[in-house]
């Protein structure tokens, strides 16, 4: 998952980026309104965390411009202004959630995960598809109640696919969303990870959770009756 952090307080931004990267997110950072808008519109981010008081133009205006441009990118406001007037104004501008500073890191992560799930239509922190369950809180997966031993990359790959069920996801989209800019972008790496993931998820070959669409990408199809 690729996050955009728009925060002008450098110290806080650096800590947040470190922590979010530790959690397996790819993080882009902008420290003013125009920069944030540029990242949000031109980069394949999955969610934006926006401070309201920004140089250039305010976070509120950033969100308004983003929504005016037709973007449905989930936005979480992170601000020290905690009056209800500011919250309501932020949500009216098009933000999806609101968190006041200072905050507990776990709470920020919980809200980010909740927002990401909501986009995929999942209401609970545990994403269930047939016998497969993905727990976004503990960042673990289980099959028929048995915990799966996934590496961090494998988990992120599975999480991204499960957050976009019934959707064709291209290899380039996966690299963009799961790897930072400076990482190896060889698409063969993705194929390797997909193959390993399939072996772990479906050792007997009777579930076929990830379908390969030649030349187009992959599609997570398990538990389609979930609707």
């Amino acid at each position, binding site marked *: 998952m690729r996050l955009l952090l728009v925060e002008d*307080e450098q110290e806080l931004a650096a800590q*947040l980026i470190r922590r979010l990267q530790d959690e397996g997110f790819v993080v882009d950072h902008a420290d003013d309104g125009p920069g944030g808008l540029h990242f949000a519109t031109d980069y394949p981010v999955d969610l934006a965390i926006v401070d309201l008081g920004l140089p250039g133009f305010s976070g509120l205006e950033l969100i308004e411009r983003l929504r005016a441009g037709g973007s449905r990118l989930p936005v979480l406001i992170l601000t020290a202004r*905690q009056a*209800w007037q500011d919250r309501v104004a932020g*949500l009216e501008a098009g933000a999806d959630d609101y968190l006041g*500073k*200072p905050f*507990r*890191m776990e709470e920020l992560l919980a809200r980010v995960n909740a927002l990401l799930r909501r986009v995929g239509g999942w209401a609970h922190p545990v994403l269930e598809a047939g016998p497969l369950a993905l727990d976004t809180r503990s960042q673990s997966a289980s099959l028929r109640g048995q915990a799966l031993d996934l590496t961090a990359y494998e988990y992120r790959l599975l999480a991204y696919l499960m957050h976009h069920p019934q959707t064709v996801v291209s290899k380039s989209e996966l690299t963009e969303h799961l790897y930072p800019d400076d990482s190896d972008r060889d698409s063969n790496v993705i194929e390797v990870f997909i193959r390993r993931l399939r072996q772990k998820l479906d050792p007997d070959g009777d579930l076929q959770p990830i379908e390969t669409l030649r030349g187009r990408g992959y599609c997570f199809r398990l538990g389609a009756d979930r609707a």
Partner: protein
Amino acid sequence: MTPSLQRRLLVVASLVLMAFLGATGMALDQAFRTSLIQAQKDRLQGFLYTLMAGADVTDGELRIPDDLPEGRFHQIGSGLYAVVLDEHGETTWRSRSLIGRELTVDRVLPPGERDFYLAELNDDRLVGLAYGLSWEDPEAGRGEFTLHVAEAIAFRVQERAAYRRSLWGWLGGAAIGLLLAQILVLRWGLRPLRRVARDLSLIERGDKSALDGRYPREIQGLTDRLNQLIRGERERTERYRNSLADLAHSLKTPLAVLRTSLEADSSRPPTPETMDQIDRIHATVDYQLGRAALAGPPRFGESTRIQPLARRIVDTLPKTRAGGPPEIELVCPDEMRFPGPEGDLMEILGNLVDNACKWCHGRILLAVSSRRHRSGPQTLRICMEDDGPGVPDSERERILQRGERVDESRPGHGIGLAMVADLARNYRGTIRIDRSPDLGGARFMLEIPMPH
């Protein structure tokens, strides 16, 4: 309480008017009486000449023929009488109208003098004129006589009564007319003051932001000052709030840095006490600065329409709920008003709705109504209900106190409801927690007395 301006002016004006009209009436009455008397004198003088013209002295006695032009002298009891006395006061002649009546006159006047007097005959009041005259006759010699003419004044009295009736009738009518005119003039004259009062109450209700009408020069100074005062008050409140918000902002950002950097240092995990202290600083900043920024009931009572604001909150806040937005019912008549600024109402509704969203299973109800107790002011009632687990009896008191949070596992540091309770107290209202009769969860009932 001092009587209203209109009443004062009206009372004083009525008194002056009554004194003035009374004096006018008396003067007119007096003038009429004088003219009546003068007319009576003129008539008697006329009768005197009539008598003298027909008079004749025979054998030293003054005789008056019976064919006088004025027939009433011959008609018995006609009310017009004449008597002639000689120089010794002996009656020498009586008009026929005196037959059967005794009119005692004894005044004897020297020639050329006259005198008016009042007399009585039977029950009639008479006005009399005595006139002394001398008669020179070559044959009869010189004689002195006194001629008395008297006329009953019954008709005159009636005339005067009629005059008085009509006089006082007209004066009374004029007085009523003038008073009515006075009331109208006063109403018109005091209208600008009434308009100022009305505009002030519009400002109180929040329908107007300043006295923006055109007022007469005399009170323009007053309204200008009031406007300055109102504007100054608003600006001051605004500045105050902004600097508090800035203060909160500049305290909370370093706190966030402190917190995240402590959490980020995996080699030396923070002690629970450290985190606890940070939480306490955070809660104190939120609560004290948040509370200080609340305006409370404004001096220049502005008020806020509730419905649009409640709608905004209900449309935005619930979408942040972790389990998806609950089903929300908002019942709020259009005309409902909160007797304070928007920020305070936002704080109340925001905290209540947020709390309900946090705890409900899927349904919340926000109902705003107004009630009038038999004795006492109108009360605004804000009811927030949910279908969650409710608040146990033992916790009800506690969660309204500052910094208390019943369930530590839910986000927020529990100052929201304490803030609402504080606000309720600021507005001399109450907050009560019980069980929602319809939804089964908690019900927060806020009651705030309305001004006026």
